[in-house]
């Protein structure tokens, strides 16, 4: 068998399991179909195999950082990288594996690196979006074209409708559904919901087609054309 065949066969069999597991009834002519019972084991097996992939890329990352450290180009950053990595590995493993048995300073170290370095960094980077969304809205929401105007109008209504101040601003409007919170909820609930659903149908059909192409080894492209060289 050529490598290409092997790959195609493995792909097909993996897909076939889940396909049959879904399509076949639990019992055929009095015989129990065991596929569903194997599902748990296979799930664990895949989780383990997936976890083995973690080492990929690390080699390149470490090599790059090491080079910076040695050549002195941007050395302080690389020092930061290695210190942070070492700290989280040391404290993380000891804290997770030893649990309550670990000495107090390990817990303190873990608390610092996890709750007071990692968490704030994640939260802060994410929160940069608050600033970017302001500048993006300010810059892009202009009544330049009809499409831009529609986009802006909808965004404006929903944005104000979501906060108490929107309700407060338009509480005087006699027709209830013209008040901002209701209008905003309507935009989200009716046109947005319908558009999402339409997109969802398209994307689902697309996903189905891709599943089919992969399963039956019809796919071509960057990954597949270089197969088995």
């Amino acid at each position, binding site marked *: 068998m050529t490598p290409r065949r092997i790959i195609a066969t493995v792909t097909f069999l993996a897909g076939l399991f889940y396909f049959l597991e879904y399509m076949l009834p639990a019992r055929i002519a009095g015989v129990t179909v065991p596929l569903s019972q194997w599902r748990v084991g296979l799930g664990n097996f895949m989780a383990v195999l997936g976890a083995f992939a973690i080492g990929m890329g690390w080699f390149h990352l470490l090599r790059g950082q090491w080079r910076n450290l040695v050549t002195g180009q941007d050395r302080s950053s690389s020092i930061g990288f290695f210190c942070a990595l070492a700290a989280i590995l040391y404290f*993380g493993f000891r804290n997770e594996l030893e649990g309550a048995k670990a000495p107090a300073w390990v817990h303190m170290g873990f608390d610092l690196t996890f709750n007071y*370095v990692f968490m704030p960094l994640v939260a802060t980077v994410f*929160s940069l*979006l608050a600033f970017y969304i302001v500048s993006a809205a300010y810059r892009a929401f202009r009544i330049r074209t009809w499409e831009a105007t529609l986009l802006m109008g*909808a965004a404006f209504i929903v944005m104000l409708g979501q906060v108490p101040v929107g309700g407060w601003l338009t509480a005087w409007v006699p027709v209830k559904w013209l008040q901002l919170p209701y209008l905003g909820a309507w935009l989200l609930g009716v046109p*947005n919901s319908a558009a999402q659903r339409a997109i969802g149908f398209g994307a689902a059909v697309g996903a189905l087609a891709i599943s089919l192409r992969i399963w039956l080894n019809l796919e071509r492209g960057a990954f597949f054309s270089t197969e088995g060289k």
Partner: protein
Amino acid sequence: MSPHVWQRIEVWVAAICTLGIYSFLYRENRFYRFFEHVFMGVAGGWGIVTTWTQVLRPMWWEPMKAGFSAVRTGHGDPWGALWVLALPLGSMWYFTYSRRYVWISRVIFGFFMGATAGMGFRAFVGGQMPQLVSSFKPLNSPNNVVFVVTLVCVMLYFFFSFERKNAVVRHGATVGRWLLMVAFGAMFGNTVMARMSLFIERFQFLAVQWLGLKGG
């Protein structure tokens, strides 16, 4: 060191990290770059820790160890020892670095993609059928009319393979694009709140926990 002092140090460290990232809003600088790399270090390291403690150890290492001890002592379930096979299989990923044996890594990629594809069928039926059925709305209210019109027009926009000769199709698709813009606007407006709440959380941290101001 008293817990209180340590707590203060921790809050200070967190505050410096926070401000380090925010300095990027002014412009790219060394301070930011430092925290950028610290972040890469902790995030990557934590990924390694959780992979071992949450996945590999409980699902692979422990059953395998139990299996081997069962083989040795004759007590328990020896089948766990078979997990040792996961090691050569898992190492197949790494053949992707060899230009000659790259196909070996493709086998495992294929396995994962095949499984994902197989699950795709279940997902399609389970996810889309209720959506389709609930689209059967009687045209008895303005909301339902808008809903159905939007659904049809947006779907028309996403047809790629035939020329839009028919006026209904052509205009329908154009209206579809407009309606998409409305939907995008609604999503954007909706997101403003989410993003602000992230910043507000950070702000409350800096103001209350770090500087000790009383929140409003």
